[in-house]
């Protein structure tokens, strides 16, 4: 495997890691207004993600850094092209971080309710916009001869991208529900389960709809797939079905593993749809940014591969340790949020 392809996969792994981990944070943020009533129940939700959300968000920062390091032209084109959308995402992520951190610092109900709403909205907006961005990339971005974005903000709000946005909202809602079932109890968990089932249905239906829609809206994503075209969808549907089945049996931990696998397969579907492009160009395929023409030099890719292979196992090791310290339903103490 060439270094460029290895980095295509590694960036994909970072995106999948982000979608699995911060996906449940974002999902919990969107769900909490609906599944938790009163401050005590809300605190269960906030503390279900409290110790880990910040580390989960680092997957996004590292993914951004890795994209910059491995495929600088993609980083430059996509981030400058999707300027306004990204500014909104960043704004939402700022508000989300402070709403989590500041919510519990005052004992006033008004203060907490205010931050609860901010938390929900600022979890919803990135979930939607990440999907819109991905939808646009699968569909292809309008690029000029230099590989610069040549479209408009309004042009990004096309039907295919908007459906992808809804898909990612449904995905994170499902993933959030799968996580919260491990961390909550009693009536909250029952509400989470029924919300999770609704979100799951929307997620699977939207996956099928998007796949069909892409035949029309992104026909190039069906050409020359790197793996058999049915593979990722099959694995996705299998993992999603297993999630639902495990919920039915009350096997909540297994269900969370399956929903995480389904999220990873959704990201894999994306990768299979665009490979060997990172950004397919709308119209003229010769303008596309590919693993070949957008990557860094072999030396940089090799150095970064060493950094990733040396660093990430350590990260995964202590992350697993930290998660294990917080295993089981939320128990509030005086240090909690």
């Amino acid at each position, binding site marked *: 495997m060439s270094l460029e392809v290895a980095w295509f996969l590694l960036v994909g792994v970072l995106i999948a890691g982000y979608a699995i981990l911060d996906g449940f944070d974002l999902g919990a943020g969107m769900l909490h207004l609906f599944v938790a009533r009163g401050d005590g129940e809300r605190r269960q939700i906030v503390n279900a993600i*409290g*110790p*880990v959300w*910040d*580390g989960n*968000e*680092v997957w*996004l*920062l*590292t993914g*951004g*850094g*890795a994209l*910059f*390091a491995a*495929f*600088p032209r993609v*980083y*430059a*084109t*996509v*981030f*400058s092209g999707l*300027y*306004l959308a*990204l*500014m909104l995402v*960043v*704004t939402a*992520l*700022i*508000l989300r*971080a*402070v709403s989590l*951190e*500041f919510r519990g*610092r005052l004992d006033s109900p008004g203060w907490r309710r205010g931050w609860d709403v901010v938390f929900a909205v600022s979890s919803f907006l990135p979930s939607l916009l990440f999907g819109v961005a991905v939808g646009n990339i699968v569909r292809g971005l309008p690029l000029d001869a230099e590989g*610069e*974005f*040549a479209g408009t903000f309004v042009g990004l709000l096309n039907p295919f991208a908007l459906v992808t946005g809804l898909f990612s909202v449904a995905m994170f809602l499902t993933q959030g529900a799968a996580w919260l079932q491990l961390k909550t109890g009693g009536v909250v968990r029952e509400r989470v389960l029924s919300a999770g089932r609704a979100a799951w249905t929307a997620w699977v239906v939207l996956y099928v709809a998007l796949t069909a829609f892409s035949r029309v809206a992104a026909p190039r994503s069906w050409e020359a797939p790197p793996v058999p075209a049915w593979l990722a969808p099959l694995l996705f549907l299998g993992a999603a079905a297993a999630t639902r089945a495990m919920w039915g049996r009350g096997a909540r931990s297994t269900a969370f593993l399956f929903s995480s696998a389904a999220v990873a397969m959704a990201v894999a579907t994306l990768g299979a749809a665009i490979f060997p492009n990172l950004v397919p160009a709308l119209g003229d395929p010769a303008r596309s940014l590919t693993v070949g023409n957008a990557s*860094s*030099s072999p*030396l*940089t890719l090799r*150095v*970064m591969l060493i*950094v*990733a292979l040396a*660093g*990430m196992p350590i*990260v995964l090791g*202590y*992350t697993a340790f*930290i998660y294990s*310290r*917080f295993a089981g339903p939320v128990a509030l103490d*005086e*240090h*909690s*949020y």
Partner: protein
Amino acid sequence: MDAVWLARLQFSLTVMFHFLFPPISIGLGFLVFLLETARWRTGRDVYRRASDFWLKLFAINFAVGVATGIVMEFEFGTNWAGYSRFVGDIFGAPLAAEGVFAFFLESGFLGLLLLGRKRISSFVRWFAAAMVSLGTVLSAFWILVANSWMQTPDGYRVEGGRALLTDFGAAVFNPSTLPRFAHTLSASLCMGAFLMAGICSWLYLKGRGSDAARVSLRLAVVAAFAGCAFVFVSGDRHARQVAHTQQAKFAAMEGLYSTQKGAPLILFSLPPTQQGPREGPEIVITNLTSALAFGNFQAPIRGLQDFPADQWPPVAVTFLSFHNMVIVGNLMALVALAGLVLLLARKLETARWWQRVAIAAVPLPMIAIQLGWTTAEVGRQPWIVYGLLRTKDAVSKVVAAPAILFSIILFSAIYLCLGGLWLFLLGREIAHGPDIGTRPDAAGEDRHVA
């Protein structure tokens, strides 16, 4: 208003606001680590209470630092796409390494330290504090690698309009990385120490000086003095490096226009201009700049007139920010020295005049740090990568001025609220103090103090 100017405004606004917080995290993180070490080794409860208190402040500060840091990670691509294309082969790697080696470490272990204290042993708690502090230091290292490469690029060749990596070690340890890393860490230690000293002084003046305030105050005074000493040593080393590697910037910092042997040190003058020095009262020491920069009173130093005018940085801003940084640094050293003398004379807890000074001195390191970064970044102009790429050629061509203006307004509004909330929440925690609201709970106590 043109897009280049707006993009620069946006970057300076977001980066200056962001960098209010990391020095506090680095400095306070290290001081918490020292308190945790004392707690772990001695098992005395006073260290636990002190550490718990400073951790609360650390957490509020860290949250704002992270929130405002997210912007920075994306801003190179959104606003500086030309730059990203030119340097991506080199600049992206330290950013990714910062994520892998630093961000995961500090955020992961901070979560454990803040919310999992009851679930971990005394040793793991100490270890988590050590990892949080290490994470902040590694983060500073990698981001300074990236920024130092913009100041003194090394280990690269330019080909097809891109800088390509040829030697990773040389790019990481380019001529300015280590001097700037040392200078930034010592300034951050000052920041944490002055903040701690100011807060403890306030507690004493309010008659709430307790054992936790006492150990913190003593630690802070020693750290402030050590920090100031390191700031001077590393600052001297850094300035000599600039004199060797960024001569136009150095000339602007010192306000030197003509190339001369035995260049004087200007202690005070009216701000110089892009046209030349301004006539007026000044205090200069002959030959001293040559001596400080090159260790020789007669060493020649190139003045700005040796460089084409289109390669001059904005002289007045570079000169003023540098000189005022030095002045503020000297004030800090005086405060720290007085504190150390009082500590040795065992009068620190009763010297109310010094405690008032220490409260007033809390913003000093923050001001000095902002001025120092202004010197570094404005002095680098008109280059974004020194000598290789001009700032005006580095912006995103596809982002129009109104879009940048919109985001500037958006961020200004949010940052104003964030800054206010940060002050308000810090103020609340400080008012609670280290000893009010701590419930000696038996279960936690046994484990922690064992």
